[in-house]
């Protein structure tokens, strides 16, 4: 009599035994590649992030409250087709440069991270909306643990600039989706200190990538308030608006931008939006 169950068990064991070297080698390969990717990524600050994650979250929510006045302030600029406010007219003196300067960073959703190097010297206070700055200062003094955190930040800062240099060498920045939360919190914290428009723009693009379109709009507006000439911020704004189902707003904003600047990217994106209207 055939003991079929026994034979089935035996077969499963046989199959497993035959597959195990494969499974082993594939999994080790996977582990090695993951480890390599982690190494490529900004791994060191992320580890540090974990320890202060909770406090960072507080600040992240803090950003929300500060955001509101700014949003109101700038959202008028791109959306309402009305006269470009002082915000936009000011940098008009440096006209058309931005679009040519930005040619390398044309791929909107893959921003370069060069700006991370120039944190300390960029972010001219000229561009800051004064009301916002005041609020910011208030907020900073409000948060009691801010000073304590400052030391931790200083340490992290060093590491990030180091790793960003490395990234520039290899050309691209890979953001692991599981890590972006921490990285983002870190970037937001940095922004609160430095008020760098590039950083805001980068945050907006990161949020867009993570499909957090509402936040992406907020941050693109923020970036725009600091540097209205950057096509990237306009594009993230428009793309996020499209994702939120507000296509008309996106089109209007892009037209506003093209009234004053020339940008192939913006033009083509606008055309594509107008086409499948």
């Amino acid at each position, binding site marked *: 009599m*055939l003991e079929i169950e026994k*034979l089935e068990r035996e*077969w499963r064991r046989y199959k497993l035994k035959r597959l195990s070297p494969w499974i082993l080698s594939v999994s080790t390969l996977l582990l090695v590649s993951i480890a390599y990717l982690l190494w490529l990524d900004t791994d060191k600050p992320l580890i540090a992030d974990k320890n202060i994650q909770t406090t960072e979250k507080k600040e992240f929510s803090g950003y929300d409250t500060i955001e509101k006045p700014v949003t109101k302030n700038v959202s008028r600029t791109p959306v309402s087709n009305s006269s470009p406010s002082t915000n936009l007219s000011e940098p008009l003196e440096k006209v058309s440069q931005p679009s040519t300067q930005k040619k390398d960073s044309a791929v909107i959703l893959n921003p370069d991270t060069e700006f991370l190097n120039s944190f300390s010297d960029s972010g001219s206070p000229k561009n800051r909306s004064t009301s916002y700055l005041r609020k910011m200062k208030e907020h900073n003094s409000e948060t009691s643990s801010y000073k304590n955190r400052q030391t931790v930040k200083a340490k992290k800062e060093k590491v990030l600039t180091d790793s960003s240099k490395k990234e520039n060498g290899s050309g691209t920045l890979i953001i692991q989706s599981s890590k972006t939360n921490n990285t983002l919190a870190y970037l937001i914290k940095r922004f609160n200190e430095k008020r760098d428009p590039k950083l805001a723009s980068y945050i907006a693009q990161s949020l867009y990538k993570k499909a957090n379109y509402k936040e992406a709009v907020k941050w693109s507006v923020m970036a725009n308030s600091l540097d209205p000439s950057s096509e990237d911020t306009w594009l993230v704004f428009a793309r996020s608006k499209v994702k939120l189902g507000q296509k008309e707003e996106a089109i209007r904003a892009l037209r506003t931008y093209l009234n004053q600047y020339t940008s192939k990217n913006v033009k083509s994106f606008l055309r594509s939006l107008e086409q499948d209207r």
Partner: protein
Amino acid sequence: MSKYRKLQSIFIDRIEVNQYIGLDTSILFYNKLRESIKKPLKMILLYGKPGTGKSVLINKIYHDTKEKKEVFLISAPIQNEEEFIKKLYTFVLPKSTLPEDLTYNRFIDICNTLKDKKHITVLLDEAQLYPPSMMEKIRLISDTRVIKFVVSLHKTEKEDVIAKEHFQSRIWETIELKNGTVHDTQMYIQKKLIQQNYFEVSNMFRKSNFRLIHKLTKGNYREINKLIFTLFEIYDHYETSKPSKIAHLHIKNRFIEMSALKLGYIHA
């Protein structure tokens, strides 16, 4: 009897001439052997590993030539010398009555008197079972040229030595049978099924099945029989207990592997 039981019975190891299958290699050997028999040779050595189809081939030859030629087959070795000589005598002189005191020497004398008048072929299967002394006498009988022997034996290292030492000078032709190729394996299984009108079952086998079967059996026909027998045993079992398990258009390699596990070809 259930379908799979019948299928099992097809692959029971036995030699039936009407179930001979003309495989590429076996046809080659068949023609070679038939040619050899026609030639004025004293002895022909047919050797190969167990299960390569020596017995099948020798039986087929016997079956196909016995009408036209005086061909005789001793499929199981006759270990007793006297019995063996008696048998040979009936082949050479079937009509005359057996002499009372027929010894080996007496038989040689008779053969010498029949020289150039009588030529018969005797097929000896499983010749590795004859003791060396008997083999020596067979050799001497063949020298009379009255009886031509086709000796089939297993090829092992030891028997290679026998082949060399005892037969070298006398064996004019040697034929080695080998295990089948993947193609032979496929032909063997499919032709065996088609022979019994199981066309649809034959179509259930695919190239990957044959490759696996060949890998597991090394193309040895006896092992192929055992494996397919067990495979249909498993199918038969599932048909009564879990029919859904075998409700496929094709043979699953899993069941072939299970058969191999049962037969100990592979181990878990």
